[in-house]
């Protein structure tokens, strides 16, 4: 009896879905693969909020295609290849998304691209996957990113440290695609500029103690430790144990370490010697547009990856609009809407873009996080700043070359 009731209910729900389907025929779904749990969890909410802001802009200003609604299907990629692949498979096969914004972490991007997005022909735009390995993907031109590869960041960071008079550093990197990629480009550039690496070692995530590794690194005699890790994961443990044991005086991290949870947990008063690099949007009218809207939504405009998350979702929507919802044309449409020449479109100007596309005119999206002139591999050049801890957050101290 019970089983019959359930079967009846399921049938009724399915029937309702079939009946309801035609009314939403114009709706378009994109997958939003945020790293809600896992080592960069604290970065995820502002990123998802920024992507959703882009979706809201689309829906407020005329919707997508023939007045349809753009819907963001939120999934948890957990900064982990397995979770990301599962979530992406669900998004592609069950929710039938046309494009994926995310996943957030490089290893997750590589796995999702190889096993889900590229085989299914779904466009993938990551707002924060920065590993140089992503450049090398055989991706049928389906994988893009709205922020520069870490190859640039590692090199820029190496030059910045040299310029600040730091000659000798030790490097501790998380042994995954993100940490290793950064560490390798940093090492190459730092040594090429005459700097000395007094220690260079990878570590696994999730251990309770890193004191023996740190003691070994400290024995090299450097005062500065460069940490390529996540500030909400192992990076926090490493920083805490280094500070408590006095292994190093100065600590430098990359974008993954720029976490407010880290400042809260260790305390700003203990973090005088802690600096991070992170990509920043160049001052532009588009960035102002974004900042105004993002602030109005009650978010903090200094959140890392917020601009790139907005741009990734907005670009995905533009590409879908341009391609008329045709999955096969998404990649070429993305290049058409993002790159010069064309009428410039700023962040938030969906109505204008929609009209120009309808008129068959070429547009060029100038994003909040950059111009997004993709190269052949789907990468963009970028700009970084060097931050120090200030209050409960971070404050930019210098631009990086």
């Amino acid at each position: 009896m019970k089983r019959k009731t359930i079967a009846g209910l399921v049938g009724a729900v399915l029937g309702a879905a079939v009946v309801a389907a035609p009314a939403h025929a114009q709706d378009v779904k994109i997958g939003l693969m945020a790293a809600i749990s896992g080592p960069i969890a604290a970065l995820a909410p502002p990123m998802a909020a920024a992507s959703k802001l882009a979706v809201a802009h689309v829906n407020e200003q005329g919707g997508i295609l023939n007045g349809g609604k753009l819907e963001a299907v939120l999934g948890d990629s957990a900064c982990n290849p397995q979770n990301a692949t599962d979530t992406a498979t669900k998004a592609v096969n069950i929710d039938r998304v046309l494009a994926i914004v995310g996943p957030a972490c490089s290893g997750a991007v590589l796995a999702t691209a190889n096993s889900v997005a590229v085989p299914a022909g779904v466009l993938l735009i990551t707002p924060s996957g920065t590993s140089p390995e992503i450049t090398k993907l055989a991706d049928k031109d389906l994988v893009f990113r709205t922020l520069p590869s870490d190859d640039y960041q590692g090199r820029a960071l190496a030059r910045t440290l040299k310029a600040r008079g730091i000659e000798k550093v030790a490097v501790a990197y998380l042994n995954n695609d993100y940490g290793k990629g950064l560490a390798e480009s940093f090492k190459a550039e730092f040594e090429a500029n005459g700097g000395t690496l007094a220690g260079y070692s990878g570590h696994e995530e999730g251990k309770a103690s890193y004191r023996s590794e740190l003691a070994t690194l400290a024995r090299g005699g450097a005062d500065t430790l460069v940490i390529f890790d996540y500030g909400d994961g192992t990076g926090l443990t490493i920083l805490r144990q280094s500070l408590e044991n006095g292994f190093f005086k100065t600590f430098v991290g990359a974008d993954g370490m720029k976490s407010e949870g880290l400042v809260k947990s260790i305390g700003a008063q203990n973090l005088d010697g802690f600096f991070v690099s992170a990509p920043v949007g160049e001052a532009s009218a588009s960035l102002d547009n974004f900042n105004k809207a993002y602030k109005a939504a009650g978010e903090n405009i200094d959140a890392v990856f917020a601009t790139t998350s907005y741009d990734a979702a907005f670009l995905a929507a533009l590409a879908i609009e341009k391609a008329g919802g045709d999955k096969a044309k998404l990649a070429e449409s993305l290049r058409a809407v993002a790159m010069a020449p064309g009428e410039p479109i700023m962040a938030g100007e969906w109505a204008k873009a929609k009209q120009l596309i309808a008129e068959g005119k070429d547009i060029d999206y100038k994003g909040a996080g950059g111009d997004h002139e993709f190269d052949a591999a789907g990468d963009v050049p970028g700009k970084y700043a060097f931050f120090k801890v200030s209050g409960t957050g971070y404050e930019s101290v210098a631009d990086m070359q």
Partner: protein
Amino acid sequence: MSFLEFLNFHLVPGIVLGSVYAVGAIGITLVFGILRFAHFAHGDMATLGAFIALALVTAGLTPWAALPVAMAAVAVVAIVVDKLFYDYLKARPKIMTVMASLGVALMLRAVVQVVFGVDPRTYATGIVRPDDYFGILLRDRELYTLAAVVLIVVGLTLFLRHSRWGKAMRAMSDNPDLARLSGVDNRKVTMLTWAIVGALCAASGFMLGINNELQSMMGWQVLLPMFAAAILGGVGRVEGAVLGGLIVGVAEEMSIFILPAQYKAATAFVLLLLILLVRPRGLLNGKVL
């Protein structure tokens, strides 16, 4: 490298870490020995305990005062989990209970993530620089951790050796049918075992948290070293779990001398494989599984 450096940065962290592993491994070995299955939810139960203590600390208790309360709370949770899930599968093959415990692990973790969020948390903000004891650097929390572990181990050993219920637990571990025939109430012993296991979980999670930070994945990540410790010492042997925990903890911190740091996590694996190959009953001659 000086001898003091070796002590401070390799041996002492290894012993502190090892004693936390030991507390977790005792729980695992009790479930293994008395209830005869591998309890995969152990790590996440530890996480739950750590976060319950955090809630109490946020409410105004000092961390070490919050510990007993958290232990009691998780003891209750463990009994409830047993009644809801494991007890129901008692008559089925043990592998089902093992898999159910994996499911329980995911559920407990999800509860922690929903209630407390996924950001790293700490019992107290800031950092603690160590005190110098004749050249050996120790923090108060490390001394308290070691003291608490000694207290737990001695207390538990006395309980198992000399009390009526402790003897009943050991009897059930040796042979459940014979124990029942001799008048031991298996259901009560099972409940008691879960209460003790839950309390030990909370203690290990708390000590892991107070020596580092609290993360929703922290328990899951120490599950493997804890299992390695339990098997290394001999399944069902409390002293074995303590010995195994210390060996695994110290070996992890020492592995840095012979292996690149990224292979540190593999140390527990290697130890587990070696012991299963050379001495499957464990160092102190536990049960064969």
